[in-house]
């Protein structure tokens, strides 16, 4: 027996970076997608030129080439869209039998699936995220979300014990640039299923897939005005928030803007759902499955270039395994393929905009200045476009700004701890509370940690998983209200005795 063990070969392979690791290019084709030269506003079921007469460019952040130009909705355009939504609510959508409403949403979901490849290509071109992510995550999850909520439309009587429900009216929805199509789906699906009508504004750097969704909505023959898509930047969003005839604001974006919205709707009857920033703690205990944990940490922080509000951006490693985890993390980072988002092998694509790249670079400089130890992958970066190497900081202090503030990029801060109580104290010491993670093979420790961490979504031995049936949303300054699942219905309903 002892002999047999002695003879057994070790199957641990040492990573050698001096040998060739390059893959042949495997680019997705741009020709499978149609992007118009110019997009107008989708109001009342038709494409309408903006009353503001203004348009702005949208570019590919990986090449800095112009993709298209989209209309900039002014206050008068917003008013037009809200009127269309109000009219559709009163005259059509509110009165329609719920089972018919459901079928419209099912139809939109199906059309989205039929056009999945085109949507994925446009998402990657406009936002810079790797095609494998938009193809395998963003677009299918967006369609699934519509499917899930479509089924709820005629079942609301079962959702809230001892209560009847009524829709709120017109929902003003503002989505972020990190998951444009998915967030549009997260917002539109529950709003329509519960009988509300919608005015939605995508983020200004990533309008194209949402405009493509408007084409799908038109193709699905959704009654005019039920969903209106208008494009623009912060001022357009403010006009939606401040419009007197909007009943509900659903916003995903930064905590700062969320606070501005909460102040702006004070004194009005408007309801709000705010999905804001985060600085998730991801905790690895010494009894964790280390290799899976390292893989999980990579996914937690580098998924979508770190442009994820629930990204695991604060890593807490138990002191006894810190060296090993950091070494394995460095090795794994070195194998990440950074570059052309359209290449199917790419792991990390382009930073979404020049502005965001500057913010990330500012924080990297702050991290160095604060005395943390920086390590970045040695990958080569394309000459054009906006890029950032996967970066980790070790020896980070709890009080460092890179451990407290949201960076929204591929930058990980690593801290260490010794005891359960210490790490809970540190993990919860944040104004945010969107998500958290814990890695350990001990079941009772998992539940001890997941119960005590103050966050709306907690991943144990996994990270960054999403599903239409699973509620998502934050504690504390990460916002309030839930999107997804049964709990995602309530923000769009009044409950009546």
């Amino acid at each position: 027996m002892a002999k047999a063990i002695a003879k057994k070969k070790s199957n641990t392979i040492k990573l050698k970076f001096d040998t060739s690791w390059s893959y042949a290019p495997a680019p997705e084709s741009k020709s499978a997608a149609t992007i118009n030269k110019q997009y107008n506003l989708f109001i009342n079921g038709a494409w309408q030129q903006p009353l503001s007469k203004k348009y702005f460019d949208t570019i590919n952040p990986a090449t800095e080439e112009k993709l298209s130009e989209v209309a900039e909705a002014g206050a008068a355009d917003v008013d037009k869209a809200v009127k269309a939504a109000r009219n559709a609510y009163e005259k059509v959508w509110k009165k329609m039998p719920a089972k018919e409403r459901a079928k419209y949403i099912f139809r939109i979901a199906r059309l989205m699936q039929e056009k999945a490849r085109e949507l994925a290509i446009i998402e990657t071109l406009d936002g810079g995220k790797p095609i494998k992510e938009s193809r395998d995550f963003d677009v299918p999850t967006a369609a699934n979300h519509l499917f899930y909520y479509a089924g709820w439309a005629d079942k609301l009587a079962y959702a809230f014990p001892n209560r009847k429900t009524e829709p709120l009216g017109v929902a003003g929805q503002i989505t972020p640039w990190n998951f444009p199509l998915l967030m549009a789906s997260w917002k539109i699906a529950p709003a329509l299923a519960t009988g509300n009508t919608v005015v939605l504004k995508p983020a200004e750097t990533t309008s194209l897939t949402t405009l493509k969704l408007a084409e799908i909505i038109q193709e699905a023959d959704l009654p005019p005005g039920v969903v209106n898509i208008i494009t623009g930047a912060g001022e357009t969003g403010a006009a939606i928030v401040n419009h007197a005839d909007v009943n509900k604001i659903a916003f995903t974006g930064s905590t700062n803007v969320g606070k501005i919205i909460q102040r702006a709707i004070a004194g009005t009857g408007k309801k709000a759902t705010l999905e804001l920033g985060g600085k998730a703690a991801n905790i690895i205990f010494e009894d964790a499955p280390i290799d899976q944990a390292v893989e999980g940490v990579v996914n937690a922080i580098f998924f979508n270039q770190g442009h994820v509000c629930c990204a695991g951006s604060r890593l807490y490693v138990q002191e006894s395994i810190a060296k090993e985890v950091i070494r394995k993390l460095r090795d794994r980072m070195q194998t990440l393929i950074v570059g052309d988002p359209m290449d199917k092998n790419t792991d990390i694509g382009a930073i979404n905009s020049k502005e965001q790249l500057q913010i990330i670079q500012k924080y990297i400089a702050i991290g160095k200045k604060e005395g943390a130890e920086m390590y970045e992958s040695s990958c080569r970066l394309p000459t054009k476009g906006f890029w950032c190497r996967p970066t980790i900081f070790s020896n980070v202090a709890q009080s460092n700004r890179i451990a407290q503030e949201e960076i929204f990029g591929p930058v990980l801060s690593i801290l260490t701890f010794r005891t359960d109580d210490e790490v809970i104290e540190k993990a919860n010491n944040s104004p945010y509370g969107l998500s958290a993670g814990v890695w350990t093979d001990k079941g009772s420790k998992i539940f001890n940690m997941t119960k005590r961490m103050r966050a709306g979504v907690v991943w144990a031995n996994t990270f960054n998983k999403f599903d239409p049936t699973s509620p998502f949303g934050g504690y504390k300054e990460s916002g309030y209200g839930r999107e997804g699942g049964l709990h995602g219905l309530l923000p769009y309903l009044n409950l009546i005795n």
Partner: protein
Amino acid sequence: MEKTIKKSALSISENGLEKKNSSKRLEVLKTYKIYIGGQFPRTESGRYYMPANAAGTKLANICLSSRKDFRDAVVAARAAVSGWSGRAAFNRSQVLYRMAEMLEGRKAQFIQELVLQDSTKAKAEKEVNLAIDRLIHYAGWCDKFQQLFSAVNPVASSHFNFSVPEPTGVVSIIAPQGDSLLGLVSVIAPVIAGGNTCVVLASETKPLCSVTFAEVLNSSDLPGGVVNILTGKPAELASWFVDHMDVNATIYCENNSDRRKMIREKSATNLKRVIFYDKINWYSDEGQSPYFIMDTQEIKTTWHPVENIAGAGGGY
């Protein structure tokens, strides 16, 4: 003089002594204090006010609580969160039931205070009965609402996924101003049934029952700091109730549109949850439901991989 001794005369008769003796004996007046961290201090400010009933009778020298009192109360409430939210739901249920028992036992005193504060005997008795029953109602919910509002979510990937309500933390409450007891109990009970702690500002004009209710709490196995009760003026204190960075949610029960606007604006400093209850009839069944508990709950969703669902791998 005749007016001020009215209440003590009543209490004497309650104790079974001959009423005529009361005129021979100097009454012992109760000092109405505030309730912070399980203690009964007077306001640190040393200030007081003298609310009167419709007949002009002065009720008592009531503590005019200050911003500092509120801050002290928040410290006490925050310190009590982990212990109270960490208790078994069943145990919270028992404590709320004990509160009802203690309230029942002091029914006569509450009726007398309510009568002094312009209620009729019959109405006062109804209010106290409803308050007791409301505590019983929420005692029963403590270990049940989680089951109604939780979910096991059928995610498409190889994971076990569930969502449960958890208390939001410290809640500041400006209680209904129109009555002395029932509104107060109706807003406190769902907040603590759900595992939160709170700081409550009582009715400004009818504050007597709030202080006596604090005495009920103090003898009910409710840990100090879970409920903290201040007396004073909403006009002065409301902005501090919603300004504090260590408060997670604010409940406001009046229909004062300026104050509501102020509350929502200031709540943005740390994105407090803001709950308005200005259209609730606390005397009816619409004044109680598990949805009031859910108003100060957060939904937490937990994921864990499952091996081999439909041939899938670990799903890490």
